[in-house]
C-alpha cells in the first residue's frame, strides 16, 4: 500500500505555487504593453518634430509631474486650472507623489520613452538629466522673452545653467535653514541660537540644551551634504570645482572630527536617532518628533515642519559666516527635450513664475517666488505665520548671501548617499573620522568619474 506518498502531496502543492505565475505574467504583460505603446508613439512624436508651429488653439494635453504633499498638490492644481481658464485648449495630465521614489519613477518614465512634458527637479538631479540631454535647453526661449527672467535675481536663474544650457528654471528660492524648537528653549530659559554663531558656539549651545532639557541640542548634520557644503564654503572650499571634487580627505576628516567632538559632549542624539533623522522625510525631522532641539533643513520647509508639531519653531542660517549660503533654486521646472508640446510647456513655466494670480496662489510652497516683484506682493499679503517667518528669514539673509556655487555635477546623488554612509560609519563608531573620510573621498571619485 503506497499512495505514492510524496508525489501526490506535491502535485497540489506544485500547482498552488504555479498557478499565480501566468496571471502575474499576464498582468506584467499588460503593464508592458501600456509602457510600450506610448514608447512607440513617443518615438513617432520625436520624429515628426512638431514643435509648436502648428495651430496655437489646437487642443493640447500636457503631462506634468512633481513631488510634494497634499498641500502642494492642491495649490498646483489650482494654479494649473487657472492656466486652463486662460488657455482653454490646454489641459493637464497631473501626476504627483512623495519625494521618496520620485526620481526612481521619473527615471523609469524617461527610460520607458514616456516622460512627462513638464517636470519638477532639484539641483541633486538637474545635472544628471541635463548631462544626458534629457532636458530642453531653455536659453532660446529666455532670449526671445517667451520665458521672462527679467525680474529674477540673476544668480537664481543662473543656478539652472548646466554646461552653458539653461536646463531648468527656478520654481522658487530657498536657502539652508536651521530650525529650532522655540517653545522648548523658552520653557527652559535657554537663549535662542542666532545667525552668525560659530560652529563651536553652536555645539556649545547645543551641549547646554541637552544638559538642561534632556532633549539633545542639535541633530548631528555630518551626513548632511548641504551642511557640509556650507561649512566647506566657509573654509574657502566647495563641493565641486568644475568636474572635480572641491575638497580633500583632510577637509572631510576635520568635518567628521568636529561632530565627533559634539557627540562626545552629548550635544547630539545617539547614532540610531541621528540615523532616524537622516533617513526620514521633512515631516519627521527630529525637531518635529521631539528627539532634538534643532534640525538642518531648507528654509522653505518651515510650513511643512510647523504642521507637524504644536511647538513654536524658529529658523536661522546655518552656523558660521552666512555669506557661505546662497540664493538656491529650491527646485526647478524642466521640459523634456523630446516633448512635442514644448512651447506650451515653456509657456506654463513662464505662467507659474510670472503671473501674479498664479504666483499669489502658489505662495512660498516651492520657496520664495523667483520673480522679485511678485515676491514682494506675496510677502505683503500672506497671513500664514510659518510662511511669514520663512520669508522674513530669507529676506534678511538675502542681504548676506554670497555668490552661488556651480550646480552639482553628474554623480552627485551618489556622492550624497556616500556621505551618509561615511558619516554614519563614524557615528556608529565603526570607523574613525579619518577612515570614514578616506572611504568617502575614494567613493566620490569613482562616483563622479
Amino acid at each position, binding site marked *: *500500500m*503506497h*499512495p*505514492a*506518498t*510524496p*508525489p*501526490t*502531496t*506535491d*502535485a*497540489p*502543492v*506544485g500547482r498552488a*505555487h*504555479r498557478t499565480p505565475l*501566468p496571471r502575474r*505574467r*499576464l498582468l*506584467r*504583460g499588460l503593464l*508592458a*504593453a501600456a509602457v510600450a505603446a506610448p514608447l512607440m508613439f513617443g518615438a513617432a512624436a520625436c520624429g515628426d518634430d512638431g514643435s509648436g508651429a502648428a495651430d496655437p488653439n489646437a487642443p493640447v494635453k500636457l503631462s506634468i509631474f512633481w513631488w510634494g504633499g497634499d498641500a502642494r498638490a492642491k495649490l498646483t492644481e489650482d494654479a494649473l486650472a487657472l492656466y486652463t481658464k486662460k488657455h482653454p485648449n490646454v489641459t493637464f495630465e497631473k501626476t504627483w507623489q512623495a519625494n*521618496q*521614489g520620485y*526620481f*526612481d519613477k521619473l*527615471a*523609469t518614465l*524617461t*527610460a520607458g*520613452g514616456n516622460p512627462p512634458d513638464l517636470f519638477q527637479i532639484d539641483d541633486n538631479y538637474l545635472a*544628471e*538629466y541635463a548631462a*544626458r*540631454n*534629457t532636458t530642453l535647453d531653455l536659453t532660446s526661449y529666455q532670449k526671445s522673452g517667451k520665458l521672462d527672467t527679467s525680474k529674477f535675481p540673476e544668480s537664481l536663474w543662473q543656478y539652472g545653467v548646466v554646461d552653458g544650457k539653461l536646463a531648468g528654471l527656478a520654481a522658487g528660492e530657498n536657502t539652508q535653514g536651521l530650525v529650532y524648537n522655540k517653545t522648548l528653549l523658552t520653557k527652559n530659559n535657554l537663549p535662542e541660537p542666532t545667525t552668525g554663531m560659530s560652529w563651536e558656539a553652536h555645539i556649545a549651545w547645543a551641549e547646554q540644551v541637552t544638559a538642561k532639557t534632556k532633549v539633545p541640542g542639535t541633530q548631528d548634520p555630518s551626513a548632511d551634504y548641504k551642511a557640509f557644503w556650507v561649512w566647506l564654503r566657509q573654509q574657502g572650499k566647495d563641493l565641486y570645482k568644475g568636474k572635480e571634487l572641491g575638497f580633500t580627505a583632510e577637509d572631510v576628516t576635520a568635518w567628521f572630527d568636529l561632530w565627533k567632538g559634539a557627540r562626545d559632549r552629548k550635544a547630539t542624539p*545617539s547614532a*540610531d*536617532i541621528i*540615523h*532616524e533623522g*537622516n*533617513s*526620514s522625510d521633512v515631516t519627521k525631522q527630529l525637531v518635529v518628533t521631539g528627539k532634538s532641539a534643532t534640525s538642518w533643513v531648507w528654509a522653505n520647509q518651515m510650513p511643512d515642519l510647523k504642521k507637524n508639531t504644536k511647538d513654536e519653531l524658529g529658523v536661522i542660517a546655518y552656523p558660521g559666516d552666512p555669506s557661505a549660503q546662497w540664493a538656491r533654486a529650491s527646485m526647478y521646472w524642466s521640459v523634456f527635450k523630446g516633448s512635442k508640446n514644448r512651447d506650451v510647456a515653456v509657456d506654463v513655466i513662464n505662467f507659474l513664475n510670472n503671473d501674479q494670480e498664479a504666483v499669489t496662489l502658489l505662495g512660498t510652497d516651492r520657496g520664495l517666488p523667483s520673480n522679485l516683484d511678485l515676491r514682494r506682493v506675496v510677502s505683503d499679503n500672506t497671513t500664514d505665520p510659518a510662511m511669514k517667518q520663512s520669508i522674513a528669514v530669507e529676506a534678511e539673509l538675502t542681504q548676506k548671501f554670497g555668490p552661488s556655487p556651480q550646480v552639482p555635477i553628474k554623480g552627485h*546623488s*551618489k556622492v550624497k*548617499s556616500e556621505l*551618509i*554612509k561615511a558619516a*554614519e*560609519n563614524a557615528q*556608529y563608531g*565603526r570607523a574613525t573620522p579619518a577612515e570614514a573620510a578616506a572611504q568617502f573621498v575614494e567613493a566620490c571619485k*569613482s*562616483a563622479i568619474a
Partner: protein
Amino acid sequence: MALTTAPDPTRGGPGSVRAHTRRRGPGRIRHSEGLAGYVFLSPWLIGLMGITAVPMLLSLYLSFTDYDILTPFSEAQWVGWANYERMFTADPSYWHAVRVTLTFALIAVPLKLAAALGVALLLNRAWRGVGLFRGLFYLPSLLGGSVALAIVWVNMFNRDGAFNSLLGLFGITGKPWVNDPDWALETLMVLAIWQFGAPMVIFLAGLKQVPTELYEAASVDGAGRWRQFRNVTLPMLSPVIFFNLVLETINGFQGFTAAFVLSNGTGGPVDSTLMYTLNLYITGFTDLDMGYASAMAWVFLLAIAVITAIFFSTGRFWVHYSDGEDR
C-alpha cells in the same frame, strides 16, 4: 521541482498528448491538436516572449554596455566585459551586498524551514481547533512581501516600538533594533522566519501522506518517538523538504521589499541591510547605472542557478523518492 516534471498522465504533459493521438492515427489531426495547444498557450507564450524573454535578452546586451536609463537604448556604449570586471575587482560595496545576502539566506532559510517543520509537526494532530491554529500560523505568509507589513515591523522594532515595551515589562532595556547596524539585518531575518506559513502548509500536506503503518511497524519494532521521526518521518518527508529548501533559498536570495522599506531604499544603517537585489535596484534606478545593474542581475541569475544545481546534485544522497517498491 523534480517532482513536478515526473511523468503524470493525469496532467496531460506532452507524453500523454502523443499517446492519445497515436491511437487516433492521422498526422493531420495530431498537427491540428498541437496547433490548438499552442493557441491555448499563446497568451502565456506571448507574455513569456514579450515580457520575460525579450527584456532578459536586452538586459544581457545592456550588461555589456555603459547604459544610464535616461538615454535611448541605441546610445548605450559597448564596453565589453568592463561591468563584470568592475564587479569582481573594483566594487567593494558589491561584495558587501553579496555578504549581506549570503548571511541572510544562510541563517534565515534553515531557521524558517525548521520553524515550519516544527509547527507542522505540532499541528499534524487531531486536536480540537487545530484548523484555527493552522490558519493563524499561515496568516503571516499571506501578507507576504507586503509593504504595510514591513512598515509595521519597523515601528515594532524601533527604539520606542512595541517590542521594546514588551522587553521593558521584564526589566530589559531594548535596542533600537532597526536603526542599529548590528541588528537591522537580524530584524529582517526574524520577519522572514515569522512568515513560515507557506512551507508549513506544504510540510503538513507531506506529513498527512506518510502511511501510518510505517509508524505502527516502527513502534512494533520498538522505535521511540525520536527514532520514528528520524527514520520514518524525515525520509518520507525528504522530497517535500527538498522542494521547500530550493524554493525558500531562492526566495531568501531575492528578498527586497522588507529591506527596501526598512532602510528607506538605502540599504542602511551603514549598508547593513544592503541585500543584493536592493543594491542592484539602487545601482540601476538611483545611480542610473543600468548597464552595470544588468550585469549584476546576470551574475545573480547564474549564482542562483549554480546553487540550485548543487542542491539537485546533492539531493540524490538524501532525498528519498521511493514509494515502497524497492524497500
